[in-house]
């Protein structure tokens, strides 16, 4: 794994990493992947990823599981807030 590939992964994962971290991860990744690559040697003919057919959907009706004031406690945790709205940076350019 080279620095460019690590930077690409970090970007896909939405994590900003510096050059020193990039170099460190590149080295660690190579040895981890060497080991993980042994999965390719597993003979899996005749086996499939299992499919499950159990019906687990519930009734589409609101269940009173949480108290009414839970919205307040959730909003209290929000890093940036505007009244009862979660505030984010501009999504659309003017």
């Amino acid at each position, binding site marked *: 794994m080279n620095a460019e590939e690590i930077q690409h992964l970090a970007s896909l994962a939405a994590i900003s990493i510096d050059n020193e971290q990039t170099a460190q991860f590149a080295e660690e990744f190579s040895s*981890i992947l060497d080991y*993980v690559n042994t*999965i390719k040697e*597993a003979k899996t003919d005749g*086996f499939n990823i299992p499919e499950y057919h159990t019906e687990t959907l519930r009734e589409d009706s609101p269940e009173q599981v949480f108290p009414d004031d839970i919205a307040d406690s959730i909003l209290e945790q929000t890093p940036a807030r505007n009244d009862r709205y979660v*505030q984010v940076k501009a999504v659309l350019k003017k």
Partner: protein
Amino acid sequence: MDTIHKIHRQYTEKTRRPSEVIDEALSTIKEKDETINAFLSVFEDQVYAQAKELDAKQDRGEAFGPLEGIPVSIKDAILTKDERTTAGSKILQTYTAVYDASVIHNLRNEGAFILGKTNMDEFAMGSSTENSAFSPTRNPHDTSRVPGGSSGGSAASVAAEMCPAALGSDTGGSIRQPAAFCGVTGLKPTYGRVSRSGLIAMASSLDQIGPFTKTSLDAGYVLKGIEGKDTLDATSVHISSQRQIDLDEIERGDVAGLRIGVPQEYFTEGIQPEVKQKVEEVIEEFTNMNVIIKDISLETTQFAIPAYYVIMPAEVSSNLARYDGIRYGVSSFENASTLHEVYTQSRAQGFGPEVMRRIMLGTYVLSGGYYDAYYAQARTTQTKIRKDFDTAFEEVDAILTPTTPHQAFPLGEKSDPLSMYLEDIFTVAVNLSGNPAMSVPANPDSSELPIGFQLIGNHFDEQTILTLGHAWDRAISRQS
């Protein structure tokens, strides 16, 4: 600290008051936790208030439930309402849970004391609790050594006699390995037996909450209190009457005629000789109880870790996408100029290196061009691993292995990520297959360091492994 079984009897016979048990728990924490660092938070006021109520209940002569008045410590990956819940991570160090996890809800209904939150590897990623953002926990048997991970704080709290029980979570061995290192019993239930609602998710198809206790019988007590179908967790399963835990049957410990399989692949050269010796002593003791020992083979063993380190990071990369600095947790909102920077900088600030490694590994194995070679291949291998166990259980009632290849290692010894991953070599396979598995303390090594053996059961057959564990516990206490 006495066992749950004993304390419950003391409450019933009125030879002990709940406030006395809580006093013992809290004073042990005060005495030892500055060194051990098992707890991230202790709910002193709440448990004192609850103890007063339970004292009054005892005075009124009312009956106590099996878990009533029992102090339980909780891994900080499990949400406790109105209390800090951090998952051992900086990114959640200011997060207050807005609801109780279902297991907490159950424990509160049972009248247990929710004693406090315990330290863990960040987002359950690690095998030593050294990846905690809040400094490591130390092994009570030797404080220069790790307690194991990721549920190191929970394991240590029971080993240090701070409480008779703790809850942890196990995705690749995170209950069983610290149990082995700390000389306590740790049970990972069958996938689906215990609700995951309110457990901060690591790998949703593998995670299970389970108990740490001193004995197998106590583990049965806790399991009964937390298991069962939960409408908030679609993967949880109703426990049918045949699958119910029978504490009386566990206590009888009738194991004669049961068949234990010993898989050759788990007794390879890489094991510390004393670990092998102590586990062989366990096998011999079971033979003395007229348990039938069978040599078996689990061919797919060598692929369990590679498959796990594809499937788990893949799910991690998805589950940890929610930590984006928008709704909760550490946020770079003030300094970031764009929305994307809020994400990338919040995550850079809040996540430790192991978390970043696993998210990126998961991103890699799921990315275009690699999905078939890694993820699809790992999932197919997982089916084969499960089949291996199902085939074995046609011939045996339980499987016995060492829990770990060696005893607890010194803090700071394992700096290489891959060598840390290999710590889980005997534990990961059952997370992939869904089978229940429990680590039970064997006799310790020549320097009194704990060694654990693992009992693996058939799906939803915790009863058999708890009974075998109890039979061993009883044999050991007779010897001492």
